[in-house]
């Protein structure tokens, strides 16, 4: 059907009717006409112009057509008979190319002129094409109309590979369809989260895992550099980081833009979309506009539901009984079979907004609702969307949910009973209503009756219940139920357990560390899902802790999350009160030489550092460096052979030494040499907190080894090893751990002790409080009860160090993470009030 087709009107007496001309034969244009006809079928003579050579079909159902679940005939909304029956003239395949507002006519590509009394623009939107090299190669398609689907189906017939650029709703539906048609699919998405406009990080992570499980390759944070081709056809996609993916077809689904060319050329007010009022009237009173091409109250919509609302108010206005459109709240469902995903409203939170999160790792469920001023304002559901419609209804109606607040996250079945003041509004009451044989803990097969009996026999805390009947002791997903049973059985006598890691979880530091290993958890969003975090993205307490725990548990495997680190560790320097940084290069064992001193002196002069200070850890601290200058400072220091001193880190700081037997008349061993060796062995290691070491050459202890985390005091017969000292707020002298005879033994015990501390202490717990918490005996016993433990722990430390001992300064000086140091741009106002932007690079 390539020729223009028209269905001549059969109506009579048209001359008296007002002429309504519609540009756009899509969902919005036809729906608007339907609404007008339903109100007053005799008011207008209607002519519809369509660019596509076919009748009106349901564009959002193209995904099921691609996936083979529907045919084109299934998705036709209005066939030829609809136009005929309603006296509508359809001009398809001959798009309108100009609007003459003064003469009130439109002109088509073939030169046809049509006069109007009222004009309706429903041109929809155009897919956005990223203008990378190769974007115009044959084999690069968008996903917008049936022709695109036909092109994709033709490509899929030969199998092979497809790359979909864009991991939004449309891109993922295209990827799903192509995968079902037998292609090997890669999705390249610019953002780190799939469907980031509809999903938060947690739901996006679950979606990504599921798509990967189905065999798709999902590349997030992938920035397309170029579409590759040979012999005039696409062969692959190259990313800016150099990765390449083969492709026999590339689907560009990165977004849409309102199609406003016609309206703009006609001089209508156009911003992002064609500006309309609440009656869908443009800046020209004779011209209305509707659908994805419009901008209403500052918003452009790309979903179908707002379109129905717009068409209603447009029709009300067109027949002379205006009602007004107040904007729409939208919801999203992904049309990928087997994946239940729903999102609605606003999850941006803000003042007074409260997140309620429920996770069920065993069933792969994540639910998050956002409540503000006693109203539901947003919802994200993954894995179980049964309550999506209910939440959406609450959201649209703006109902007061305060009476069902407690049970809201459990869904309509729990909460609706309470909407009228029923007993189920309280989750405790819901648990009370369970029968005695109802299973509480699926992992360990514990019934409600058993849990209650355990509590009645004296288990007064969650921990006691966990240890005595094993309920909630494994995956923890029934923790909430057990807590309810404790409250129901004991009332106020429930004893709170040990402090949880932070307010985002009921698990303690120890629980989290144990479960990371047991459940093989290797990413922060995975920990949060599997351990039922109650917030979507954690907080400033748990993110750095989890980052450390994962780093410690999976050396070499876990990818460090820079944005989950405190500023000093992210910037590899110490932030000062004025926002500048201080820089401390490593001086092994407190030794230095003329080259290093010259390099430091040069840096101080070159970057105008206002102060240099000798630190308590025997090195030099250069103050007042700007974040932009840090990489250059490091490059200069690196050139003199110096590396990061980690003076900023929860990590090994310094190894302080005295001069020892080489120079000192009292020295018993080579304490300086041993200090250097220990520092070479331990530098770069990330720890729960900062960690200081000292080696003194005799019991006079000039290196102050007995207030360090690990201290060596040399004596005639060997080496005394001390632990748990602290010179900070609360001074604590070390405990003697053991005595060894050789340097090698001292270093081996040092490694083992550090590794034990790394694996056992809570994040931000220094060795002193850790040892006071667990007891020195427990540390000794963990190290020395079994003869091979020291060697095993030391080996684990050495393994971990393989991945830690690369100088972070050198990496930054070479350009890594440059965006952390550079300004994104600079604003330079001129007196004429014209501003110029200076972009970095």
């Amino acid at each position, binding site marked *: 059907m390539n020729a223009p087709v028209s269905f001549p009107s059969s109506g009579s007496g048209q001359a008296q009717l007002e002429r309504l001309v519609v540009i756009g034969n899509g969902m919005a244009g036809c729906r608007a006409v339907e609404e007008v006809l339903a109100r007053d079928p005799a008011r207008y003579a209607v002519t519809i112009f369509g660019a596509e050579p076919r009748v009106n079909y349901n564009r959002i159902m193209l995904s099921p057509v691609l996936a083979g679940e529907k045919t084109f005939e299934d998705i036709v909304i209005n066939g030829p008979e609809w136009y005929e029956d309603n006296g509508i003239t359809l001009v398809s395949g001959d798009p309108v190319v100009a609007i003459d507002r003064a003469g009130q006519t439109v002109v088509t590509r073939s030169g046809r002129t049509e006069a109007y009394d009222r004009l309706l623009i429903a041109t929809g939107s155009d897919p*956005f094409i990223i203008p990378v090299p190769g974007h115009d190669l044959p084999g690069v398609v968008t996903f917008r109309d049936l022709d695109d689907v036909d092109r994709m189906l033709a490509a899929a017939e030969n199998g092979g590979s497809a790359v979909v650029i864009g991991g939004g709703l449309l891109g993922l539906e295209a990827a799903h369809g192509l995968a079902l048609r037998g292609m090997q699919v890669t999705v390249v998405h*610019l*953002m*780190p*989260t799939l469907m*980031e*406009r509809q*999903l*938060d*990080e947690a739901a996006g992570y679950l979606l990504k895992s599921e798509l990967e499980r189905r065999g798709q390759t999902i590349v997030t*944070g992938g*920035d397309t550099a170029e579409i590759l081709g040979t012999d005039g056809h696409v062969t692959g996609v190259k990313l800016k980081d150099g990765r390449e993916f083969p492709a026999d077809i590339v689907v560009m689904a990165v*977004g849409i*833009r309102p199609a406003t060319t016609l309206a703009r050329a006609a001089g209508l007010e156009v*911003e*992002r979309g064609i500006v309309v009022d609440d009656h869908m009237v443009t800046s020209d009173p004779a011209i209305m506009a509707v659908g994805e091409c419009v901008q209403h109250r500052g918003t452009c919509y790309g979903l179908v539901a707002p379109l129905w609302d717009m068409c209603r108010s447009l029709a009300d206005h067109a027949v002379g009984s205006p009602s007004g459109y107040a904007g729409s709240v939208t919801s999203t469902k992904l049309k990928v079979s087997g994946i239940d995903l729903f999102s609605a409203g606003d*999850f*941006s*939170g*803000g*003042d007074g907004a409260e*997140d309620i999160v429920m996770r069920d790792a065993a069933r792969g469920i994540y639910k998050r609702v956002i409540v503000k001023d006693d109203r539901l304002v947003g919802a994200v559901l993954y894995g179980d969307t049964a309550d999506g419609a209910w939440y959406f209804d609450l959201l649209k109606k703006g109902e007061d949910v305060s009476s069902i607040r407690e049970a809201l996250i459990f869904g309509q079945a729990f909460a609706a009973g309470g909407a009228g003041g029923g007993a189920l509004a309280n989750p405790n009451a819901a648990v009370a209503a369970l029968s005695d044989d109802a299973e509480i803990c699926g992992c360990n097969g514990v019934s409600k009756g058993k849990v209650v009996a355990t509590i009645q026999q004296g288990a007064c805390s969650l921990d006691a219940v966990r240890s005595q009947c094993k309920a909630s002791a494994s995956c923890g997903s029934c923790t909430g139920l057990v807590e309810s049973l404790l409250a129901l059985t004991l009332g106020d006598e429930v004893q709170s357990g040990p402090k949880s890691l932070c307010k985002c979880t009921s698990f303690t530091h120890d629980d989290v560390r144990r479960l990371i290993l047991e459940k093989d958890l290797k990413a922060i969003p995975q920990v949060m899902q599997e351990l039922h975090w109650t*917030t*979507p*993205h*954690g*907080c*400033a307490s748990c*993110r*750095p802790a989890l980052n450390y725990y994962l780093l410690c548990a999976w050396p070499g495997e876990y990818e460090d*999350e*820079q*944005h*989950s*680190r*405190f*500023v*000093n560790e*992210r*910037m590899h320097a110490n*932030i000062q*009160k*004025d*926002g500048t940084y201080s820089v401390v290069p490593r001086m092994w064992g407190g030794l230095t030489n003329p080259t290093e001193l010259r390099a430091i002196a040069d840096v101080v002069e070159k970057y105008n550092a206002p102060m240099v200070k000798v630190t308590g850890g025997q090195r030099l601290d250069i103050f007042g460096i700007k*974040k932009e200058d840090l990489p250059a400072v490091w490059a200069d220091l690196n050139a003199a052979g110096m590396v990061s001193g980690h003076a900023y880190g929860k990590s090994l700081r310094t190894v302080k030494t005295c001069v020892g037997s080489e120079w000192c008349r009292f020295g018993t061993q080579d304490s300086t040499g041993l200090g250097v060796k220990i520092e070479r062995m331990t530098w770069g290691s990330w720890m729960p907190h900062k960690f200081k070491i000292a080696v003194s050459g005799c019991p006079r202890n000039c290196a102050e080894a007995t207030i360090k985390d690990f201290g060596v005091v040399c004596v005639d017969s060997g080496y005394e090893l001390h632990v748990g000292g602290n010179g900070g707020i609360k001074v604590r002298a070390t405990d003697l751990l053991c005595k060894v005879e050789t340097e090698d033994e001292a270093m081996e015990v040092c490694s083992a002790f550090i590794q034990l501390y790394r694996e056992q202490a809570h994040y931000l717990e220094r060795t002193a409080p850790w040892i006071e918490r667990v007891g020195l005996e427990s540390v000794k016993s963990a190290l020395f009860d079994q003869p091979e433990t020291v060697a095993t722990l030391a080996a684990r430390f050495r393994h971990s160090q393989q991945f830690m001992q690369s100088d972070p300064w050198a990496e930054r000086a070479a350009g890594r993470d440059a*965006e*952390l140091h*550079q*300004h*994104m*741009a*600079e*604003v*330079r*106002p001129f007196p004429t*009030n014209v*501003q110029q*932007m200076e*972009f970095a690079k």
Partner: protein
Amino acid sequence: MIGDWLDIGPVSQISPGNARTLPVRGGEEIAVFHTLDNRFFALVNRCPHKAGPLSQGIVHGDVVTCPLHAWNISLKTGKALGDDDGCVPTIPLRVDAGRIYLLREAVLGGGTPPAKVA
């Protein structure tokens, strides 16, 4: 309308969970934030407590924790949260077709619209 908004470049130049800075000659430096759920905010880069650079803090939800003394500042309103009291000016921001725009008069006026528009 474009004239009212300053284009400060593509969204891809700030990775999620991070912030970047935008010095303004003769004005206050601005911090532009990208949250983990892919929203963008801009504030004057100065904590109301002791003027810490908020751009260097940990971002969680729509809150940034100041790197100096761990005050929590709402990215949406600029207000200090919890028991702390204070407020930093916000800069209206919008994202369009993958680029970030800041309201020009707020950029030049230190986050509050200037009394007189020149």
